[in-house]
């Protein structure tokens, strides 16, 4: 076994640790007001959409069990995906890490002879920094989701999974469109106001030209059905349909945890995802395609299966449940820490509670930012309550905190290793400041605790079925999992030198 050191200083240019970024956000009142409005609005609508289904608890348990089963046999299902997609006329590529995935996509685009691609919102390609890699190769990637367009034109970063530009208000968006659209293509219409309908129309006109001329598209996928080789993309605006249908070549970059075994399994996830995400019975558009179809849609289809740390997470008995995530963003909307800190503070494509458990597992807890993320929580448990696949986020947070504080065995890029405690190093200091940040915002903590205690009764306390043995779930203790003060005492209190 190799021994690696956890307490390395952050590499130059790395994102600031959570508490520094969070401090910055909490002083930004526009951001905080926008976030507060957004999260509270979606939260209330979501509760109503979920309440419509009497069997939500059963669907949730089934969703968790299907994902656990898939992960348990992931090698089998990945091979099945490969066979089914290939049989349907697609090509499958395997990317161990971000660099490999970017190289594969860059090569595939180059082979078409094109210098431009249209993109439909995809967290996997954000995670690997695909746009930047393509730019370095002289290829321009155009984001086509309205919010992603706002983010891209504003030379900004997404701050929410579902509504990535939620930190921008309408006047800011109008200004971005007015000044930036002409640099990327069709300029904003003269006299553009800040009416949402007018702004959406400006985006429609700006992007229509791109859709009609694009020869290559890059997407992600919400689900990949192993049995049939079918990919599923769930969206609202129609930009996804444009990207998936009009170009000649389609390249889909998909994390290996997006696989589900059977066609029938969609009946669970297509009920869980829209209601949990946009609080709709069904989102406006869902596209499903299997390989290529003669005379309908792209003639060439490439599926890039991405690991990039997912197998490292899979190796952890507690942490692996994070791979169930269907990216609905419900956990963001109930998180009192997210509401105050904003999405940017999490320093990755994955903000909020899911980011706090996923990013440190995908990247390791080596940098100051990634070591501080597990502390960006009050452990109030609200995220677990709303999660449609019952990920016990507080449990994983505690596990990752232990890893930062005490070190221990981990899998890093496929190799078993033992990490040393962070004590005395930059990572520890960042982590402690994150903890202090959460501690010093007691209003945020209390809000979360109240919410959790109100909703706890609505959800199963323990995952039934195979999930139990798989995740070694324990009963979720009463709220909070461990009072913050106790936790602080336990981990911070003098226990001698490590």
């Amino acid at each position, binding site marked *: 076994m190799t021994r690696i050191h956890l307490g390395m200083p952050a590499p130059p240019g790395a994102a600031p640790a959570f508490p520094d970024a969070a401090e910055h956000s909490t002083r930004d009142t526009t951001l905080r007001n926008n976030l507060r409005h957004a999260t509270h609005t979606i939260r209330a609508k979501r509760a109503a959409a979920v309440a419509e289904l009497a069997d939500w608890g*059963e669907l949730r348990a089934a969703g968790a069990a299907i994902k656990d089963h898939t992960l348990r046999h992931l090698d089998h299902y990945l091979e099945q995906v490969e066979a089914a997609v290939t049989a349907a006329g697609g090509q499958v590529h395997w990317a161990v890490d971000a660099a490999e995935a970017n190289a594969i996509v860059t090569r595939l685009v180059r082979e078409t002879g094109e210098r431009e691609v249209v993109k439909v919102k995809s967290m996997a390609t954000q995670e690997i920094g695909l746009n930047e890699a393509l730019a370095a190769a002289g290829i321009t990637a155009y984001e086509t989701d309205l919010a992603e367009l706002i983010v891209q034109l504003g030379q900004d970063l997404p701050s929410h999974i579902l509504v990535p530009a939620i930190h921008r208000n309408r006047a800011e968006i109008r200004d971005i469109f007015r000044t930036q659209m002409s640099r990327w293509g069709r300029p904003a219409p003269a006299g553009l106001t800040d009416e949402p309908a007018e*702004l959406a129309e400006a985006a429609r006109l700006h992007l229509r030209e791109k859709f009609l001329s694009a020869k290559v598209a890059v997407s992600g996928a919400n689900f990949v059905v192993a049995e*049939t080789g079918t990919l599923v993309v769930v969206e609202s*605006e129609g930009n996804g349909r444009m990207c998936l249908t009009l170009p000649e070549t389609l390249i889909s970059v998909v994390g290996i945890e997006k696989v589900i075994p059977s066609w029938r399994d969609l009946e669970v996830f297509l009920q869980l995802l829209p209601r949990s995400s946009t609080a709709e019975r069904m989102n406006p558009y869902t*596209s499903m395609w299997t390989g290529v179809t003669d005379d309908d849609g792209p003639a060439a289809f490439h599926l890039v299966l991405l690991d990039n740390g997912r*197998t490292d997470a899979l190796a952890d008995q507690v942490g692996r449940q994070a791979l169930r995530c269907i990216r609905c963003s419900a956990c963001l909307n109930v998180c009192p820490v997210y509401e105050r800190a904003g999405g940017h503070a999490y320093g990755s494509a994955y903000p909020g509670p899911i980011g706090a458990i996923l990013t440190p597992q995908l990247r390791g807890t080596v940098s100051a930012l990634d070591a501080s993320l597990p502390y960006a929580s009050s452990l109030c448990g609200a995220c677990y309550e709303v999660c449609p696949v019952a990920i016990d986020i507080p449990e994983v947070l505690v596990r990752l905190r232990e890893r930062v504080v005490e070190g221990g065995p981990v899998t890093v890029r496929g190799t078993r290793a033992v990490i040393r405690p962070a004590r005395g190093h930059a990572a520890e200091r960042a982590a402690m400041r994150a903890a202090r940040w959460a501690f010093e915002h007691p209003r945020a903590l209390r809000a979360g605790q109240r919410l959790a205690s109100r909703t706890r009764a609505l959800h199963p306390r323990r995952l039934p079925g195979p999930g139990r043995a798989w995740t070694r779930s324990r009963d979720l203790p009463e709220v909070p999992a461990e009072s913050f003060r106790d936790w602080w005492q336990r981990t911070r209190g003098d226990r001698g030198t490590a």
Partner: protein
Amino acid sequence: MSGRERILGRVRRALADVGEEHPGAAARGGAAHAGGEPGRDGTAPGGAPRDGVARDYLRVHGERTAAERVGLLATHLADYRAHVHRTDAAGLPGTLAALLAARGARRVAVPEGLPADWLSASAATPVPDTPALTARDLDAVDSVVTGCAVAIAETGTLVLDAGPGQGRRQLTLVPDHHVCVVHVPEQVVDSLPQALERLVPHRPLTWISGPSATSDIELSRVEGVHGPRALDVVLLSADASPTAPPSPR
């Protein structure tokens, strides 16, 4: 080593801890576990692992008559701002002509296999769907009229599978106005699980629940970004007026 071998190797090493207490474990063990509990955890025929998932959720959320099912579909379509109309075979050409005229549609895309008489009363110029028809051509078309494969009452969803009368996927995407005809009650199911049973996975599928929409700007909902901004749904019943059968043209 290829990326494929490395990823599969990492997956297998990551799962090395998973013991037999886990349902499906026997599937990995193969013959060694043949004497175990094949009924519960064994390998399914064909070597696929059994998932052991309790599917005790509901197939349908409520019992409905056919008429109630169609009514619920109409309500949920309207909830998501589709415009719902009802007619029978005799009234259909007139209904479609009126919907196209109301939008001022001069050119209307027509998928292969759309019944010829549907557009017989419309003054709009039909633009037949052929592989040669490009997205740019379609950008100059005002409306499209299609059928669908199935409609889901509980979610207010139409599913198109590129079958006869539905056309290629881009046909219902590029024009700004989509008129979709649903045969009721035959094409209407209660629930999403029932719809999946009726669909063929290998066909390209488009699920539509209301017109294109975004809430990206301060969460205010705006209808219509890239897909059709107007969605008319015509519920076509065969038996609404037994005295007026389809005209034998």
